[in-house]
């Protein structure tokens, strides 16, 4: 038999049929939904007189709009409240399990799926959210979809998709101390650009990837969309199985053993061919930070903003427009630049390990007086862990306060907006113009870089 990739194995096992010269009808195992991209799909479905075909394979949580303070009170902003209420009503009408604001397992959709064991190896997973790629960390095919496609999955538990090309990104060797998987992600995107992965599904491989924890793998796969890829995945291994075992929705008993045997087969065969392949050396990666308005515009913390001298035409105009927005000059050093805000959280870096890293760094230090810090756990479970492990005390004595779970300042749909012109070091995923609020200037980085910036009040190297 011809050697095949992990991606091929999972994709091919989910093809119900293929349209000649067209897309495949792909069966979807898990459909996550949230309040922003589902209401029009529900009304479209109901307009056709249909019910959700497989509500038991659907999971809902409101996350994009929710406040991160006083969640026990009604949401003040009318439109946000209406979206959350609409999701609740739609889920009740269609019998979809929902982890609402008052639920003990509430959180960001890409945090709660894995932590509840809903996300499992070999699955196909979709959600009307581009960071669905997060779930690929378990060796599943997970990708973001539009609202029309959400309606397709509601109606048929399937989606029409052309099969993407395959890319493998190998990271070999050992990561230096204080270099995280967020740094790997920003490094790779700075090398292959925000469109380098377009049309492809990425498998991350190599010794540096194998050594990552599940949470670190999720951060990396989460960011795969930022290089333009449909998604990213990592073959499941003992790290994956150990993470899953015993979680609420993970298989139990004899069923676990059966599944485990299947999951162990999920890997790319030797000599399988990828359309595109890159290999990077882990030793070349240092703590990264972005200086521009897309996630590909990143450099090592000791580096400088490119001069742009080699650019011409619209490339140059786009580069200069981006720096103008950020208030930076070509060729400038970033280290030592004063910052105003720090945001720790989001589906990229809102898990317990991220808060442990942050707390360990700031322990015994003090937040810079001019910095406003928003510390936002990805879920209620993460919040609970932070409290149980005594991290709240560490944060409070250093001048930081913990908020409640949600997407928060990552996309600023709630009240957590970075003011115009202010600099924010954010552990989230996008530094687009206005992403964290109109006129906000976002610099993407790891939780450790964010911790160093929060304490010193300027861009700093956490290795010092």
């Amino acid at each position, binding site marked *: 038999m011809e050697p095949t990739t992990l991606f091929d194995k999972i994709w091919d096992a989910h093809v*119900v*049929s293929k*349209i000649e*010269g*067209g*897309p495949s*009808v792909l*069966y979807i195992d898990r459909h996550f939904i949230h309040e*922003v*991209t589902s*209401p*029009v799909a529900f*009304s*479209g479905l109901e*307009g*056709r007189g249909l019910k959700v075909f497989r509500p038991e394979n659907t999971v809902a949580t409101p996350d*994009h*709009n929710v406040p991160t303070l006083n969640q026990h009170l009604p949401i003040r902003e009318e*439109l946000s409240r*209406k979206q959350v209420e*609409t999701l609740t009503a739609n889920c009740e009408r269609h019998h979809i399990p929902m982890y609402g604001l008052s639920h003990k397992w509430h959180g960001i959709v890409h945090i709660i799926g894995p932590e509840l064991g809903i996300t499992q190896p070999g699955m196909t997973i979709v959600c*009307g*959210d*581009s960071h669905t790629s997060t779930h690929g960390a378990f060796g599943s095919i997970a990708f*973001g*979809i*539009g*609202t*029309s*496609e959400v*309606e*397709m999955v509601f*109606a*048929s*538990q*399937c989606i*029409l998709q*052309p099969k*993407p090309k395959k890319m493998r990104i190998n990271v070999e060797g050992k990561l230096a101390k204080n270099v995280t998987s967020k740094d790997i992600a920003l490094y790779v995107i700075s090398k292959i650009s*925000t*469109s380098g992965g*377009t049309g492809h599904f990425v498998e991350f491989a190599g010794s540096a990837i194998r050594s990552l924890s599940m949470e670190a793998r999720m951060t990396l796969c989460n960011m795969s969309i930022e290089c*333009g890829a*449909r998604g990213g995945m990592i073959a499941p291994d003992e790290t994956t199985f150990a993470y899953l075992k015993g979680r609420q929705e993970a298989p139990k008993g004899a069923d676990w053993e059966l599944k485990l045997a299947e999951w162990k087969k999920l890997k790319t065969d030797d000599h399988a061919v990828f359309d595109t392949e890159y290999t990077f050396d882990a030793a070349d990666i240092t703590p990264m930070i972005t200086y521009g308005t*897309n996630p590909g515009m990143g450099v090592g913390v000791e580096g400088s903003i490119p001069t742009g001298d080699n650019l011409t035409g*619209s*490339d140059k*105009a*786009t580069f200069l*427009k981006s720096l103008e927005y950020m208030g930076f000059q070509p060729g400038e050093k970033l280290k030592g630049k004063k910052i105003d805000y720090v945001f720790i959280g989001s589906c990229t870096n809102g898990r317990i390990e991220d808060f442990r890293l942050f707390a360990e760094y700031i322990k015994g230090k003090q937040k810079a007086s001019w910095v406003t810090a928003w510390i936002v756990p990805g879920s209620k479970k993460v919040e609970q862990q932070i409290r149980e492990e005594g991290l709240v005390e560490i944060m409070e004595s250093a001048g930081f306060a913990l908020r409640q779970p949600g997407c928060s300042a990552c*996309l*600023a*749909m709630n009240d957590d907006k970075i003011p*115009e012109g202010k600099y924010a070091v954010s552990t989230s995923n*996008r530094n*687009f*113009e*206005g*992403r964290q609020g*109109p006129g906000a200037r976002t610099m993407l980085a790891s939780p450790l870089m964010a911790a160093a910036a929060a304490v010193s009040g300027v861009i700093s190297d956490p290795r010092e």
Partner: protein
Amino acid sequence: MAIDKFHKIISSAVPLPIENVDTDQIIPARFLKAVERKGFGDNLFRDWRYGKDGTPNPEFVLNNPKYSGKILVAGKNFGSGSSREHAAWSVYDYGFRVVVSSFFADIFKGNVLNNGLLPVQVSEDFLTGMFESIEKNPVASFEVDLENQTIRNVSLSTEFKFDINPYKKECLLKGYDDIDYLLSMKTKIEAFELNEK
């Protein structure tokens, strides 16, 4: 809901020669709070199009009366970032029926096709030619023919043959949407589920 049929469009075009236009620029997140699909065109390119006080920014192309038409021409890697279909809705609701670029982000491309909006991917050279023609003559005409998969720059008499998935082409020509097709597959889908269990 069936989509509008698409055959041929002859129109002037609106130029946006900026690269990597992400969906947060096409429609910022704070305008995604509606629970119905209407009025998104008003907020297309909101933060480029309007000042902080809500007054139109005269520098932005959509506020320049010289430019109009059903074709939006943008720099490479258009539509990157968030999967929000609101981006496709806002471009369509504004009145565009074709978006031309030298490169499109995947999710955005899928979303526009599901809404009767045609993404036309052209070469860098052809795109540059379009921008130059519009600069010389803001009402320069372009002809987009889906049946023949061609886009013609009338002023330069140049033509580009673009790619489109044959299934999606058929859907656009006939105004079919994917859900009609998927519903017709129900028996097969149920058989697939049984086989899996």
